[in-house]
């Protein structure tokens, strides 16, 4: 009945002193470059995200675009204002010279450039006068005059996108500006224009909004 006791004491496994040397804690001190190399890579990624737009912001040429009405339910989606322009309308572009490039193959996007001409430089009203689209081309136009710019756009069969469709506003002023814009859009759409900056490669960034004679710049 008595279970046979072992003759020698059983060796218990030693408990680990501090923590198991697993790989979540480095065994020896890791050299500093193990952090610096990926940190530099990550910082490069952070800087690369807005890089082209920042360059355009600093070095671009200022232009003014006429907006077009947006679906009222889509006006203020989350944190940003949705913007649409007269040049976001495929039918308008197709009516311009060179507009036949605005066609889309099945399930693919086409890239094109729209050339806009500055209005009369002597008049400086508030809000500023919008630039007018004069022609469309599939390749970047190289023969632009001083008062012309080219913006790159994409057409995917049902929507034209220029990268100018979002404008972020601070939270406390968002509602008020939005109300302002909706009121203007009901009465006189032409009073709402957007100032953008365009660089030599056709990339454009929105700079400020002009609603009647008020300028909102963020």
């Amino acid at each position, binding site marked *: 009945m008595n279970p046979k006791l072992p*003759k020698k004491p*059983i060796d218990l496994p030693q408990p680990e002193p501090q923590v198991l040397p697993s790989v979540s804690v480095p065994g*020896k001190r890791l050299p500093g470059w193990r*952090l610096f190399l*990926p940190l530099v890579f990550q910082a490069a990624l952070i800087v690369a995200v*807005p890089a082209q737009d920042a360059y355009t912001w600093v070095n671009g040429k200022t232009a003014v675009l006429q907006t077009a009405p947006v679906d009222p339910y889509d006006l203020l989606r989350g944190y940003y204002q949705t913007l649409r322009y007269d040049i976001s309308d495929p039918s308008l572009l197709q009516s311009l010279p060179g507009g036949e490039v605005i066609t889309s193959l*099945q399930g693919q*996007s086409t*890239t094109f450039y729209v050339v806009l001409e500055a209005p009369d430089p002597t008049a400086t009203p508030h809000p500023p006068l919008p630039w007018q689209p004069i022609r469309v081309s599939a390749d970047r136009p190289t023969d632009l005059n001083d008062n012309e710019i080219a913006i790159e756009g994409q057409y995917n069969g049902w*929507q034209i996108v220029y990268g100018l469709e979002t404008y972020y506003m601070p939270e406390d002023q968002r509602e008020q500006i939005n109300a302002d814009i909706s009121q203007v859009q009901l009465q006189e759409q032409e009073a709402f224009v957007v100032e953008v900056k365009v660089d030599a490669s056709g990339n454009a960034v929105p700079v400020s909004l002009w609603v009647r004679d008020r300028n909102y710049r963020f």
Partner: protein
Amino acid sequence: MNTEEFRRQLRHETEKWWTEGLINAELYKKIADRYQFDSLEQDASNRFITILMGLGGVLLGLGIITFVAANWQDWSRSFRVILLLSLFISVNLTGFYLWRRPADRKFQKLGHGLLLLGALILGANMALMSQMFHQSGNFYELLLVWGFGVLAMAYSLRLSSLGMLALLLLGWGYSLGWGTLILGQEANSLWQFVVRHIPLIASLLFIPLAYWCRSRAIFGLGAIIVVVSLVLNLRPLAGFSYGNLLAPGWIAALAFTLPPALLWGYHRALWQPVPQSQAARRVRALPPDPFQPIARGLALCFFSLLFYVFSFHWFWDVPPSDYQPYYAWDWHPLIDAVLLSIAALLGWMQLRHQFSRRWFQERAIHTGTIALMLCFNAAIWIWHFEVSPGAGVATLLFNLLLFLLAMGLVRDGLALSDRSVFWGGMVLLVLGIISRMLEYNTGLLLKSIVFALCGVGVMVAGLWFERNIRPRKVALPDGR
């Protein structure tokens, strides 16, 4: 694990043993020294202080964030950029220098937490930079860039927590990106290219990370991402609701046969030359790979899901129509599929050394049965879509495969005393029976009988299993 609660309980229990005479004073002192009973009170007070400091730190952090948010618009762009970058760099530097100190455990944990915070700040920085210049990019692009940034840090620091974060971000970014890919609204950009070739990228980047960090979770999640993206990218069933598949029928066979084949045949010797001793080389045995059971378990899960979903007859009953969808099928993911099938073939060729000629082995689900299931699987898909749609035959065969798999798993669970395998098989079996019963119109009486039988069957099976499993004998050290 010497948690504080365990030590408290141990102190309580050893005092009882001492008073009852089970142990003597010398042994009590030895235990008290080893588990440091006298520092228990000090530890409790330290813990309280840590909690208070943590709470205070969180509130302080919230205050700083709110201050920044209040003044955000008033600062110039360059100031904001400098602020963001300096915050990001300082958090990472502090975390790293605290974490790599070998002496202090508390500081190591704090440093580790700061490194994770730094990874989150990376994403916040990218989002805020993008917002400052009014960029209208896609969210999935941000997630992918963020994920790759964190992945680089995880590789360099060999941290599995950062690796998991990177995998979660990349998986989320892939799923959102896949949504835009199939809508076909995006131009062919770099990120669309990445989404199209995620299976290859994932298998090249995530699997080595799992070995480098020695983390099973990373391997499991990485393998899931590879397999799911493989099937989703090939889009084998696109258009089937119109009765007219976009892709050829053999694509469906490839999409549903390649993942389990790749998973079952996986072994690290596939991409890592493993040093082998002469003895091992003579027997042609591969050194054990700790991740192979995970891969095989995932292969069985894939099979279970596949057989279960396609055992419903309504899927095979869709009549072909003449409707032509307006989008074309994308052939780019086929490149990934071809490369991964080469990997799968290499894996299976390695398995042939371990292939036993006998059919009835200790395990019911062995390489032979898996090979058979793969062949039948491929054959059904090709037959149904290429040769002639036979709705009844396909449904019957998938149901047969489902019940064979379930019974094989149950048998293996019994033979190897493995609870999870046994219960996996039981769940599959019960699900199969109930689904068939609910699918075909039967009377309520029959439904009630089947439910009751299933319930009783599960209870009986559980009791029988626990009574009959061979208890795993732990080898005692040879002291007798």
